[in-house]
C-alpha cells in the first residue's frame, strides 16, 4: 500500500480511526464485513477522491461519516471530536441519486434545508428567501422554484441535489457520483461548481467511478477494496509521464528493460509502429528515454500524462500495485 501524507500542518477535519463495520447476519445471510479497520484523514481545503470497485465499502464509509450507520469498532472524528448530530451542521451531502421526496417543491426543499442547518447567513425568513433565490439562480433552477421534485428532469434533480448539499455552506462536502447521468454540458457545469467549492476552501470527499474527475479535481485519493484501504496518496505526487517510441515492440522493450536494468512501465499501448509507454514517476520515464536515445531509437514524445495515473488507480481495483 502506498501512502503519501499531505504536507499540511493543519489538523484533519475528518479522521477515521480504525473504523470497522460488520453488518450482522440473520437466518438468511451471513455477517458481512463492509469495512475492515479503515484509517484515514481528510485535511481542510483538500479534495479527496474515494475510489474502489463496486462493493468495496465506499457507501458504508460515507454512511459512517454521515452518522447513518454506527461503526462496529473504531472512531469517526470531526474537527478532533467524535462525530455528533451537532457536528453534521458543517457537513453537506449530495447522494448518488435524487433522494428527495417527490411531492415537495424545489424551493421548499432548500428553505427546509436552511432551517435544518440553522445557517448563520440565513437567520431570518427574508435572508432565507434571498439565499434560496440566489442558490436557485446559481444552479439555473429559478424558474422551477414552485415545481414538484417528481416533475424535474434528471439533470434538474442533480442540480437541486447540489444546491441542497451546498446551500448551508458546509465545511466538508461529501459528493457521491455528482455527475452521474448528466449530459456533457451539465457535467462540465457540475465539475465547475465543485472546482469553485474547492477554491472557496471547502473540504471535499468525492466518491466516483470516473477517474478523469479524480485526476482533474482531487488533491488526494484513497482506494478501497473489499473493505480495506489498499492505496492512498496525493494526485500531484503521482502525475504520470508518457513517452512515445517507434521501431520497438513489447518483446524488444522487455529485452531492453532487462539489459539496461530499467524500471517497469505502468502502461503500454501499441499503435502500429508507435509504442506508448506510461510511467508513474518522472525518474522512470527519464531513464527509459535516455536508454532509448542511447540505443538509437526515436523518442517522439515525452510529457505529462494523466491517463497513466488513471491506469495506476485502476490497477488498485484489481489488486495490482
Amino acid at each position, binding site marked *: 500500500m502506498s501512502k503519501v501524507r499531505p504536507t499540511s500542518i493543519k489538523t484533519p477535519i475528518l479522521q477515521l480511526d480504525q473504523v470497522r463495520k460488520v*453488518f450482522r447476519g440473520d437466518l438468511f445471510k451471513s455477517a*458481512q464485513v*463492509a469495512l475492515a479497520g479503515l484509517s484515514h484523514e481528510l485535511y481542510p481545503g483538500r479534495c479527496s477522491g474515494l475510489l474502489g470497485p463496486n462493493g468495496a465499502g465506499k457507501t*458504508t464509509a460515507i*454512511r459512517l461519516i*454521515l*452518522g*447513518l*450507520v*454506527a461503526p462496529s469498532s473504531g472512531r469517526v472524528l470531526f474537527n478532533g471530536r467524535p462525530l455528533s*448530530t*451537532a*457536528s*453534521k*451542521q458543517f*457537513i453537506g*451531502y449530495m*447522494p448518488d*441519486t*435524487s*433522494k*428527495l*421526496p*417527490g*411531492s*415537495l417543491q424545489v424551493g*421548499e426543499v432548500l428553505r*427546509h*434545508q436552511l*432551517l*435544518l*442547518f*440553522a445557517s448563520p447567513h440565513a437567520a431570518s425568513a427574508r435572508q432565507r428567501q434571498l439565499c434560496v433565490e440566489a442558490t436557485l439562480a446559481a444552479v439555473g433552477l429559478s424558474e422551477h422554484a414552485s415545481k414538484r421534485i417528481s416533475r424535474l428532469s434528471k439533470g434538474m434533480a442533480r442540480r437541486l441535489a447540489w444546491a*441542497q448539499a451546498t446551500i448551508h455552506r458546509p465545511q466538508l462536502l461529501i459528493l457521491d457520483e455528482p455527475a452521474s447521468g448528466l449530459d456533457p454540458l451539465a457535467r462540465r457545469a457540475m465539475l465547475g461548481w465543485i472546482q469553485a467549492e474547492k477554491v472557496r476552501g471547502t473540504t471535499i470527499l468525492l466518491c466516483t467511478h470516473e477517474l478523469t474527475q479524480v485526476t482533474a479535481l482531487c488533491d488526494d485519493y484513497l482506494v478501497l477494496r473489499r473493505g480495506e484501504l489498499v492505496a492512498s496518496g496525493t494526485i500531484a505526487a503521482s502525475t504520470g509521464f508518457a513517452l512515445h517510441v517507434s521501431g520497438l515492440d513489447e518483446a524488444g522493450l522487455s529485452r531492453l528493460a532487462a539489459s539496461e536494468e530499467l524500471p517497469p512501465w505502468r502502461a503500454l499501448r501499441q499503435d502500429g509502429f508507435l509504442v506508448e509507454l506510461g510511467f508513474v514517476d518522472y525518474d522512470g520515464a527519464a531513464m527509459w528515454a535516455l536508454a532509448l536515445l542511447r540505443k538509437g531509437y526515436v523518442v517522439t514524445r515525452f510529457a505529462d500524462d494523466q491517463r497513466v495515473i488513471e491506469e495506476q488507480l485502476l490497477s488498485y481495483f484489481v489488486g495490482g500495485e
Partner: protein
Amino acid sequence: MLRALGVVTMQTFILLRRDRIFWPALGASLLISAVAALFSSWGTEDLVKMRYDFGLFGFQLSGSAVAMLWGVKMISDARQDGSMEVQLAAPVSRGVWLVGKYLGLGACILLISSLFMTVWQAMLLALGYNLMQGPQLLAFAMMVLGWMVTGALAVFFASLARAPLAIFATVSAWIAGLVSPLIGQATTHDTPLPIRLVVATITRYWDLQQFNLVDKALDPAMPSLRFILDRGLYGIILIALLISLASIICSRRDALPA
C-alpha cells in the same frame, strides 16, 4: 433540537397533505356522512342512534385506516425514496426524526378530522338537526385520539419492519385492541387460568374500545371529568410509550441497512 423537530414535522405534514390517500379519505368521510344521513331518514327505530352508530363506525374505520396507512407509508416511503438518508445526514438525530414524523402525522390526522367534523356538522344542519353538542363532540374527540394511538402503533411497527409486515402487524394489533374487551368478557371460570391471565393483561393495557364513546354520545349529560381524564391520559400514555420505544429502537439501530 426543536428547530429540527419543527422542520421534520412541517415537511411530513406537507408530504401527507399532498399524499394520494388524503383526498380519497376526505371523499370517504363525505360518503359516510351522506349514507348515515340517508339511513337515518329511512329507519324506523331510534333514528339519531342509528345515524351516530353508522357514522361513527364509518369514521372509526376510515380514520383508523388512514392513520395506519399513513403511519407505515411515511416511514417506508422515506426509507425507499432515500429522503430519510438525506434528512438524517443533516443535524437531526434519529429519535427527533421519528418524533417529528409522528407529530406531522398527528397534525395531518387533526386536519382531516376537523374536515370530517365540518362536513358532518354541515350535514346535520342541512337535514334540520341541531349541531353536535358536548357529549357528541367528546365522543368524536376520543375517536380522533384513538386514531392518534393507531398512528403511533403504525409508526412503531414501521420503525421495526418493512411496510408489508408493518401493515400486517399494525392491523393485527388494532383488531386485538378492538376485540380484547369482548374476549375478556367471554372468559369464564372454566377458562384455564393462564389464558384468563393473558387475556386480562391484554384487556387491561391494550383496549382500543376505551376511545369508543358512542353510547355516551346519546346521553345528554356529559361524562365526569375523571372519566374523560382517564381515557385521555390512557391514550396519551399509549402514544408516548409507542413513540418512545420506536425512537429508542431507531436510535440504536443503523438508519440504513447493509
